[in-house]
């Protein structure tokens, strides 16, 4: 309990509160603009966090992460264009409701469902922290280097398996990201790996350079070479409070979806899309009118938005508990942890329990701020939809420079970021996923770091899997591979369309 109160005390510092407000409102606005997602915003903000206090930095990024999906629902419902990729499912029923003249109702329902999903997973996490906190401190002894190596490997396998239609591409890009992480001088044996005698490559690629290039610059190029959208004008009026009352009528769907979101968030490499997929399918299966799904069913909207917003808090759990990020945004947040000298992982329960409480309470407050903002200013936030895409691209390009240059004052960093940006642009054009690159980079680094650190205890190959946790995780890896192989072979039918 002492940690909880210290955590609350940490939150109510002026700097943290300001960061929370900026992150929440900024995330909302970013989410509402189709074309910029939270990944780009976080990529651009990452270098700025170097100059900020640890908690302030993390709260700022969490604010963007936790609020962007709320904002993303606005264009999804009003103009049939998801603000962030994970709001795609919201368009199915949200936009159909708008077509029926129920835009205000759809928005209200989306906000209340998002709020419920967000709060549900946060409260689960906080509850688990309070209930199991004393036992979680012993996790440090249970999780050794080999266990975390295996957890990171499981994360990689799950990530590839989750890209069902693009598994080959996901594996290729994961391997590429992994290889990027290996470039540079290995400090232990003083061996240069793939440096080709280039001095710049000796310390290896900076994670922020790769992230800003791959996510922000590539998106800027994508917007700059595209065309401006001409979204239809939508006027919005009416009360938005009714959504909370209506949500109570769909409480079963909301609870199931929040559960899916929380579970899928915890599993590394899975995330929002799979959570939505399961939630929506279940909601349709249990509905009395499944035919309405996709044509303006409020349950469909509730399923999609609740599942989405339950993920951020849950996704923090593997990051904090194991030091293994499950998806791109938490991978980016790891940079802040590294920078702050806080090692996410089992030891955090022993060393910084108040920090954990602070993060989850901050996320809870972010949800409150966001809902309060949306209920009062939706009309104005909806105007963000009409910012021209190419103009946005120009400003993202400008912001990317600050992001990259400020890390090490290096123009070479900027050139490499431009190179990664160009590569990311081509990948975006081809519709190849970018997330495996970042996760390959982060999970690959973790895997090799833990494998090297734990090498002293590895006499035979069996030593990699003969601990309770590593053994269980290894079995999980085998099961995931087996299930994926079987389902892939079953769907062997060639379908190029």
């Amino acid at each position, binding site marked *: 309990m002492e940690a909880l109160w210290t955590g609350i005390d940490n939150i109510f510092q002026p700097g943290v509160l300001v960061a929370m407000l900026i992150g929440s409102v900024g995330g909302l606005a970013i989410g509402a603009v189709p074309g910029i997602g939270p990944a780009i915003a976080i990529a651009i903000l990452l270098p700025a966090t170097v100059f900020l206090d640890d908690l302030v930095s993390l709260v700022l990024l969490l604010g963007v992460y936790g609020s962007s999906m709320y904002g993303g629902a606005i264009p999804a419902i009003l103009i049939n264009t998801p603000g962030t990729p994970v709001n795609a499912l919201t368009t199915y029923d949200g936009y159909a409701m708008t077509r029926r003249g129920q835009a205000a109702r759809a928005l209200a329902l989306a906000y209340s469902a998002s709020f419920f999903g967000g709060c549900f997973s946060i409260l689960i996490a906080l509850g688990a922290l309070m209930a199991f906190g004393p036992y979680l401190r012993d996790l440090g002894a249970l999780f050794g280097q080999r266990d975390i190596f295996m957890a990171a490997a499981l994360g990689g396998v799950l990530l590839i398996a989750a890209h069902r239609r693009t598994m080959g591409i996901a594996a290729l890009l994961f391997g590429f990201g992994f*290889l990027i992480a290996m470039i540079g001088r290995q400090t232990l044996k003083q061996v240069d790996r793939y440096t080709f005698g280039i001095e710049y490559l000796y310390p290896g690629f900076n994670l922020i350079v790769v992230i800003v290039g791959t996510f922000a610059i590539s998106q800027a190029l994508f917007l700059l070479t595209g065309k401006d959208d001409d979204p239809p004008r939508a006027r919005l009026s009416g009360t938005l409070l009714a959504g909370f009352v209506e949500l109570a009528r769909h409480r079963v769907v909301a609870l199931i979806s929040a559960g899916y979101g929380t579970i899928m968030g915890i599993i590394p490499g899975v995330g929002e899309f799979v959570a939505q997929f399961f939630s929506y399918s279940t909601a349709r299966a249990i509905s009395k009118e499944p035919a309405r799904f996709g044509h303006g069913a409020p349950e469909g909207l509730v399923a999609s938005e609740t599942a989405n917003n339950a993920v951020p808090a849950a996704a923090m759990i593997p990051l904090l508990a194991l030091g293994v990020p499950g998806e791109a945004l938490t991978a980016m947040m790891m940079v802040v942890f590294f920078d702050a000298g806080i090692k996410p992982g089992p030891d955090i329960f022993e060393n910084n329990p108040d920090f954990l409480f602070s993060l989850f309470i901050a996320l809870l407050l972010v949800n409150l701020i966001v809902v309060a903002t949306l209920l009062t200013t939706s009309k104005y936030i909806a105007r963000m939809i009409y910012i021209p895409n190419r103009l946005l691209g120009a400003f993202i390009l400008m912001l990317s420079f600050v992001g990259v240059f400020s890390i090490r004052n290096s123009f070479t960093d900027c050139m490499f970021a431009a190179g990664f940006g160009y590569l990311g642009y081509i990948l975006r054009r081809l519709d190849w996923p970018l997330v495996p690159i970042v996760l390959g980079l982060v999970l690959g680094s973790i895997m090799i770091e833990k494998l090297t650190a734990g090498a002293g205890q590895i006499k035979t190959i069996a030593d990699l899997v003969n601990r309770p946790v590593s053994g269980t995780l290894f079995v999980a890896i085998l099961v995931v591979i087996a299930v994926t192989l079987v389902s892939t072979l079953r769907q062997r039918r060639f379908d190029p369309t």
Partner: protein
Amino acid sequence: MQVRVDTDSMRTSAAPRPFRADPRARAFAADVPPDRKFKIEDLMAFKRGRGDLVFSALALMVALFFLMTFFTETGWDKRKLPGDGWTYWARQFGLIDGEGRLARLGRILKQGWVAPMICLAILVPAAVLNLRDSWRVHRWRVRFRQPTSLRYEGEMWLRALEFVGWFIAYTLLVPVLGYLVSTLLLGTLLPWRLDYRGPRWMGICLAASFTIVLVFRTGLQIRTPVNIWLYDQLPQQAAAFMKTWF
């Protein structure tokens, strides 16, 4: 929930009227295009387009390049492996019982070439499989007379290079003109190039660029180049002021 549709008024009215189903949304009016039809499976949809084959081939070439340079660029020449390789691995996997001490696997895992080997074990087969899939789709496209020419996609790839050029030019301009002037220049010239012209757009772009400088440089004090040619031409006090805040 019951959906009430006001059908009477729709029938009696001669002029087209908005379709209203919920009294709470009565004030809402939207002029929106017909909705697209989605399936939930669309969330996971993926379609290989033009340029995929070329890029997949390039990806394999890159993977093979790293494979070929593996023996010279990863410390492979400094490797320390047990002499009797096959016997060692057979003993590691418990296939045979050997005599004498078994060299620790951890000693091998610490060596520099192990991590790149793991990467290549993922990268190279994935690149081969991906090229195979891409080739199959390409053949399908040829057979069913789908567009396969790289021209449009290639043009798009080349078009992006112009904006990479803008980014590099901006990067090179900052040490000469300073962060403030370079940002204002990029913030107005690039939108101008994109056809956002006229006093209104220029005003918006100038204000936005200046805000970026104020937030990141003046407010957050993010590092930008210090030795700036333009600032060095200014009187000492002005130069110091500009270097500190802009």
